């Protein structure tokens, strides 16, 4: 028998949505308040979902403490109390929208997952990033992302050059 376990984490960080590809007034129009030159912060919530076999003896899909350590090392410690634009090299040329943050976190967790949890082990199947109580984003790992128009596309990075 299998089950999916979801663990919720939190980190606080600041960001600014701005692209050098657009003029200042266009940036203001597209990003609104999020384009404020000095940036602003959020208490982000991150949910990480793992799916796998429930060990018949222990009753566990995975060791939650191991997941906590892994997510802290790979993600939380890098984002916590940082300016995402300035402090994380991944966002040097990438706009730190919550969409892009979710994709980046998904990639980082996916890259280290197998080495941490083994094969066959629990699978990383999804993450959810909540920027505020009013907006959150789901990323399904290991499946193509479905867009609003139902066209199926692979997750991709939005890259902006300066």
């Amino acid at each position, binding site marked *: *028998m*299998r*089950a*999916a*376990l*979801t*663990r*919720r*984490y939190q980190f606080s960080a600041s960001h600014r949505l701005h692209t050098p590809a657009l003029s200042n007034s266009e940036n203001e129009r597209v990003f609104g308040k999020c384009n404020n030159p000095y940036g602003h912060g959020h208490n982000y919530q991150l949910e990480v*979902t793992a799916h796998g076999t*429930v060990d018949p*003896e*222990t*009753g*566990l*899909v995975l*060791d*939650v*403490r191991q997941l906590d350590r892994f997510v802290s090392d790979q993600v939380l410690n890098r984002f916590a109390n940082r300016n995402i634009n300035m402090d994380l090299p991944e966002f040097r040329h990438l706009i730190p929208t919550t969409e892009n943050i979710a994709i980046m976190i998904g990639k980082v967790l996916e890259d280290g997952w197998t080495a941490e949890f083994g094969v066959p082990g629990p699978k990383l199947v999804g993450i959810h990033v909540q920027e505020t109580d009013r907006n959150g984003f789901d990323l399904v790992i290991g499946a193509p992302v479905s867009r609003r128009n139902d066209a199926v596309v692979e997750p991709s990075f939005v890259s902006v050059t300066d």
Partner: protein
Amino acid sequence: MFITRKAEFSASHVCRVPSWSDAANREVYGEAANEHGHGHNYIIEVTVAGDPDPVTGMVVDLKQLKEILEREIVQPMDHRFLNYEVEPFDRVPPTAENIALEIWSRLRNQLTSTPARLHRVRLYETADLFVDVTGEDFDT
């Protein structure tokens, strides 16, 4: 269409494999293996799937679903020590995973008198940890 009903129960548990040493249990479960147990306010979200009845406009009678949850889950588990008072947790550790699987098993045959089918059981152990079980998790 999916419709979800929520219920709560508060219970204590201890995560231990009885045949293991104290040190081995502590290694696997950490503080959850503390001998005298500890408790949670568990929240269950039960999602059923179906089409709205053309006459009533309802997927399922939510009052009936509430009564099923009350009878099958809340009454037997609320304010109980799961390991000592609720089967099968005298034999299998009452981890969130096993409690979610047990809730699925208890509900699986309860909806047969309704047009809806059980789609998902979600069990929150704390606000920061929940487990989902669907029918596919029982496929071999």
